[in-house]
């Protein structure tokens, strides 16, 4: 059955049972992944998936399901069950009807060009990246390359209807010169033209080489320059915390901070799914509303939470078109660029630490922003404005609100980041931050 027919069938079946609001979407995706390690191919994955999602809202009684059985019988049974579940569910205190369509969507966002996803091309890209890293001195390289071409169809009972083609390709790789000398880089793109595997390999290889023979770092407070991978992770925390769902659940350090300063003046953060050709571009949200550019932080001040219709009504504001049917979510984050190149920024630091990558960020308290995370891959001491020595085995144990408020400046260069640690695609600069607290194991 065609996706459009699936939407029609489910809408009819749910409405026949007297439900006012129904959203049906069908995701048809064909993706490939190449995983590699020790300069060889570990496995090539082929993933073919077609899934329909149904959401119903019966005056605040809400239920949802994903359906893999796309036969007429399977879809009718799922429609029946999801409506039954909604009718038995207690009503939420706030009912917001679906946004009334029809809507007009940006045609450039509806139709992205396919990226190569055949194994020969993908293995070729991987080879390019590995070779580039090894030319820089890497002994071994590991990582993953994912290419996906999908088609998404959405229809709502409120008159929204759209079909979007979405393609994306991303490479994440780590190069090693020794067990404790490594570099990490990514190439994240919405088109083949913007995909640069060799550049990513070269960067990872160069960082690995520079980090050979690291000394143990000394704990303390330092001026820190955080590379784009690290700063993107911190910015992801802000964007997650800006979801109205997280605010309500007690999982946000941005609670009660609308209109207040939550970062330094140097920082502006926008969720922008309207950027054509980028990885996280999206023409519509999960309620069928055309997406928009939402400034979240401007000059360090929190401008908005991210909303779907339900959370917007609860907070007494308009939706920001960030649905998520359960939780509003950011799509595609953009941090405003700084004034100076990274090199000049580093040259202003007399004694500090450069951190190229991090992982395993965990909170002590989501409401206050106390957290820690672990630098991994290349990390250097900065002395007299220069990277002087590679160091290792430190942890950043600090507070997110404090760190972004103590951000002195951002670099002019920015990079699209998304990898295992950074879920939301983010155009991120490097950041110079005062008084970052580094700790270390005591035994």
């Amino acid at each position: 059955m065609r996706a459009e027919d699936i939407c029609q069938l489910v809408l009819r079946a749910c409405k026949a049972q007297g439900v006012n609001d129904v959203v049906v979407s069908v995701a048809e995706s064909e993706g490939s992944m190449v995983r590699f390690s020790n300069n060889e191919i570990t496995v090539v994955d082929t993933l073919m998936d077609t899934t329909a999602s149904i959401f119903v809202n019966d005056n605040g009684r809400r239920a949802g399901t994903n359906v893999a059985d796309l036969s007429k019988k399977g879809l009718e049974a799922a429609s029946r069950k999801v409506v039954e579940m909604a009718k038995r569910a207690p009503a939420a205190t706030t009912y917001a009807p679906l946004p009334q369509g029809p809507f007009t969507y940006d045609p450039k966002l509806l139709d992205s060009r396919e990226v190569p996803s055949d194994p020969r091309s993908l293995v070729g890209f991987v080879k390019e990246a590995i070779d580039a890293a090894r030319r820089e001195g890497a002994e071994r390289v590991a990582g993953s390359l994912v290419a996906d071409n999908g088609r998404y169809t959405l229809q709502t009972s409120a008159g929204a209807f759209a079909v979007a083609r979405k393609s994306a390709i991303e490479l994440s790789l780590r190069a090693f010169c020794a067990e404790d000398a490594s570099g990490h880089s990514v190439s994240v793109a919405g088109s083949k033209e913007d995909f640069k595997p060799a550049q990513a390999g070269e960067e990872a290889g160069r960082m690995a080489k520079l980090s050979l023979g690291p000394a143990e770092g000394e704990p303390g407070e330092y001026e820190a320059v955080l590379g784009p991978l690290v700063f993107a992770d911190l910015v992801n925390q802000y964007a997650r915390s800006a979801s109205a769902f997280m605010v309500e659940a007690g999982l946000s350090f941005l609670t009660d901070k609308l209109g207040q300063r939550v970062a330094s003046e140097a920082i502006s953060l926008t969720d922008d799914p309207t950027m054509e050709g980028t990885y996280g571009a999206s023409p519509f949200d999960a309620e069928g509303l055309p997406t928009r550019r939402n400034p979240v932080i401007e000059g360090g001040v929190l401008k908005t939470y991210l909303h779907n219709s339900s959370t917007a009504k609860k907070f007494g504001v308009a939706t920001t078109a960030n649905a998520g049917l359960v939780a509003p979510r950011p799509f595609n984050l953009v941090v405003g660029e700084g004034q100076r190149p990274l090199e000049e920024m580093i040259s202003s630091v007399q004694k500090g630490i450069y951190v190229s990558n991090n992982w395993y960020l965990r909170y002590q308290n989501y409401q206050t922003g106390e957290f820690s995370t672990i630098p991994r891959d290349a990390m250097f001491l900065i002395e007299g404005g220069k990277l002087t020595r590679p160091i290792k085995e430190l942890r950043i144990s600090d507070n997110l609100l404090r760190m972004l408020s103590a951000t002195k400046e951002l670099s002019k260069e920015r990079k699209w980041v998304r990898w295992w640690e950074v879920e939301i695609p983010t155009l991120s600069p490097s950041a110079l931050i005062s008084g970052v607290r580094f700790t270390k194991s005591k035994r």
Partner: protein
Amino acid sequence: MEDHLEFVISLALAQGASYAEARYQSDYSESNLLKNGEPEVASFETKKGIAFRAIVNGGLGFGASNQMNKRELRSLVRKVVASAKQAGRMNKVPVVMGQGELGQAKVDIRPRVSFDAVGLDGRLDLLQEADRAALEAAEAAGVKLPGRYLALDTLMTEKVIINSDGAKVYSKVPRVALDMFLTAFDPEKGSIQRMLNLGESSGWEGAERWDVPELLKAEVRSLASVLLKSEAAKEELGDVVLGPEVVGIVSHESSGHPGEADRIMGREAAQAGETYLKRDSLGMKVGSEVVNVVEDPTLPRSFGFYLFDDEGVRARRRYLIKEGRINEFLHNRETAHAMGGQSNASARSVAFNREPIVRMANTFVEPGDLSFDELIEGVAYGTYIKNFMEWNIDDRRFNQRYVGLEAFRIEDGELRGRLRNPVLEITTPGLWSAVDAVGKDLRFNAAYCGKGDPMQAIPVWTGGPHIRLRNVKLGGSG
């Protein structure tokens, strides 16, 4: 379904595969979420499809589809075989499936109380009763509870695994899980948070056994005490007693993960990382002689339960650390061959569209014979860390940090005042080597372990009894 699996295997072999494996997996789940007393979207989902792996010319291909007609499966096999060939062309070292005790078996865990018998009303009643109990406990204790997040999931997983080496295993396992997140608040003291996961492989009887309302009351009372009565911990040297919840996460992070053979081989290097252990680390001393860390998928009711792994290999108990020495790694068939051993059934995959990779199941410190009181009595000056909130560990699994949530001062063999946020930031051998005594009160918590790319959050138990560490330097105030 077996016909379909046999069909794809024979197709692959005919197209030149030296090994082929097909798995049908169906995961049916129902989820309910209560946020601050209000029900969020109720949901159910069936994820089902066929996963398929083949080795061709030494290259490994994996594919999956949720469209299970023969036309689609032919296309899937063609693509996977082509991918495997492409991978094989670039590889100098061929992928080979090693030895393992392959099964031909049926595992059917029957719920005592079926999930269907409970229905939506029963699930929400439980969550709402627990929420009310938490609010009552907070009022009695004199704190607010502005953040209450209770998520209840029931799952039924059905698998059929067949491979060209003769394995044929059917399994059906129910699971029930409860995730809680609480925020307690006092206008003068600020806020404090608690995350707790319960889970087991059983029917609804598991949720009944937890007595969630009473559990929530106890958790809220504890949070209130930490918030209102604890003093900030300071940096100091002393003995430390760790509670089962902390011992569980330590076992998982500092023994389970470093012992995964795919990490040792560098297969996870760009994602979950590597390990401080090497191929030749078996026998290496990493802890005191009283430390025994066990990995056991076969524990009845455990959240990580299975009797055959996703390569069809029979599961058994593994000793990762025995008397303080590295004793065994976790292997699938591929890593077992590469390192010259046998698979110990560690291949798991979280859904039909995910590759089976080396995973933990239920990781814990084996109990000793001391009671909690005996452990505490042996401490002149120290800290008891009962549970934790913040934690992390580096990607070589060597430097870790656990920040205590409920914690107590120990003086002259007795618990005295409460401490807030003591920090245990320590190396892996440093931690295991400091253990001088192990309690007998084995307990487990549930967790979802994250690994793989795409990410596979897989159910596990982490656990242990209380353990005592001597002369450890703690940090303070988080």
